């Protein structure tokens, strides 16, 4: 009789975790319906006109790009130096979110720039470092997909270099030329704009957590599929050996 142990299951989420996740989903759906109305109702900025309202979702996307990159780097450090599989899963999932939110930043920014500056693109520090960061995250995903046997560790090393690279790129281009609106825009917003901005930022952050946990669940399931497939192969091999004997 073949004896084998079932590999550990990816246990279904606990009720409390599932509850928090569903609450997050509900908040996002409500936000999707409510935030556009808030943005339309927000006062129009004096110098830039209505196009300034892109700011309410462009800036949160930029923050979430940075957050995703640092979470990816953190997970990569844990995987590279402690062999943490959870760290690796977290790094992979947050890298995808970095690419997603980075794409949102790189599309909404030029649309805003076209109206505000007259051109879609300028080589200023913020735009250039965002573009480079996004490209590095795309390179991370390429390394994971096509990097061969050491792809996970290579990608983790890339994430480390990426986290260190961003301030360096920023400083180098900032010295080179600058044209982007000042970051001090956020603390000096008019009260009516402040409420809309922070609501939008909070909702986008909740959305980020929801997407990350959603994607982590998929990653855990895929790991379980790999483990089960190996287990099935082992069992079949043992059976064939037994038959031969």
């Amino acid at each position, binding site marked *: 009789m073949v004896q084998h142990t079932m590999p550990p299951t990816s246990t279904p989420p606990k009720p409390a975790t599932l509850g928090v996740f569903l609450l997050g989903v509900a908040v996002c759906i409500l936000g999707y319906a409510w935030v556009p109305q808030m943005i339309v109702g927000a006062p129009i900025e004096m110098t830039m006109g209505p196009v300034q309202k892109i700011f309410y979702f462009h800036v949160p996307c930029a923050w979430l790009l940075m957050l995703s990159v640092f979470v990816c780097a953190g997970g990569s450090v844990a995987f590279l130096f402690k062999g943490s599989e959870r760290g690796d899963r977290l790094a992979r999932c947050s890298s995808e979110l970095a690419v997603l939110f980075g794409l949102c930043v790189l599309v909404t920014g030029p649309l805003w720039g076209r109206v505000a500056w007259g051109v879609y693109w300028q080589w200023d520090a913020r735009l250039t470092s965002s573009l480079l960061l996004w490209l590095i995250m795309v390179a991370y995903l390429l390394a994971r997909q096509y990097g061969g046997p050491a792809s996970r560790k290579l990608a983790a090393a890339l994430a480390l270099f990426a986290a*260190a690279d961003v301030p360096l790129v920023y400083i180098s281009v900032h010295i080179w030329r600058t044209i982007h609106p000042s970051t001090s825009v956020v603390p000096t917003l008019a009260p009516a704009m402040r409420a809309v901005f922070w609501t939008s930022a909070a909702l986008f952050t909740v959305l980020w957590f929801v997407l990350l946990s959603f994607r982590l669940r998929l990653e855990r399931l895929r790991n379980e599929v790999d483990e089960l497939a190996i287990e099935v192969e082992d069992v079949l091999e043992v059976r064939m050996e037994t038959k031969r004997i």
Partner: protein
Amino acid sequence: MLAPNGFVKTIFLVASKDLRIEWRNREITATMGFFSVLMVLIFAFAFVNPAGDGLKSEVTAGVLWVGLLFSGTIALARTFDRERDLEAIRALLLSPAPRAAIYLGKLLGVVFLMLLVQLAVTLLSGLFFSASIGQHAVWLALFLGLGTLGYAAVGTVVSGALIRSKSRDALIAALLFPLVTPLVMAGVRGTSMLLNPETPDMESIVFWTEFLVVVDAVFLILGLWAFEPVISGE
């Protein structure tokens, strides 16, 4: 743990092994060198107006640094390709040599080859583009040397990790180029100022040199940390 002089000796052993192999067949130098010459020629056809003066200093600086990147990619790919043949990398990793020493040894070998080719590219650029490369030769050498070191610091980690990958050749450039952008920005800015036939802005040149030193230091430290787990594979 090896004594410090043992560590340094290991670095030179690894580097001299690579350079000795290269001296015997000169494969990387020949291919890199010829590729770089052709690249400078292509840039000359693309940018130089035969009837006019030489290129602007910014364009010449760009050509020098693009040459550094492209030829460096070849050097990095081929250096580790040799380790893959006959599983030489396994023998290297099974030896008691510290991974950090292997990393620095490989780095030294790559830097030496890149600098050799970069010398040829610089001389050719001075010839074809009428660039004043002799004006501040020491500063120019410093810039290109720092850029080469930084590029090789990241590249050694990446190409070491891709040693068993099938898409190695395409991936090395795809992974490296976004990472080394601060190097390229600083290098091109500083080099174009140095090649400026009028008096260059020395204050900016010193700033970009310091910036390159910082970038190199960051890349070297990260490379030393990351090389061991990456080269050990899965």
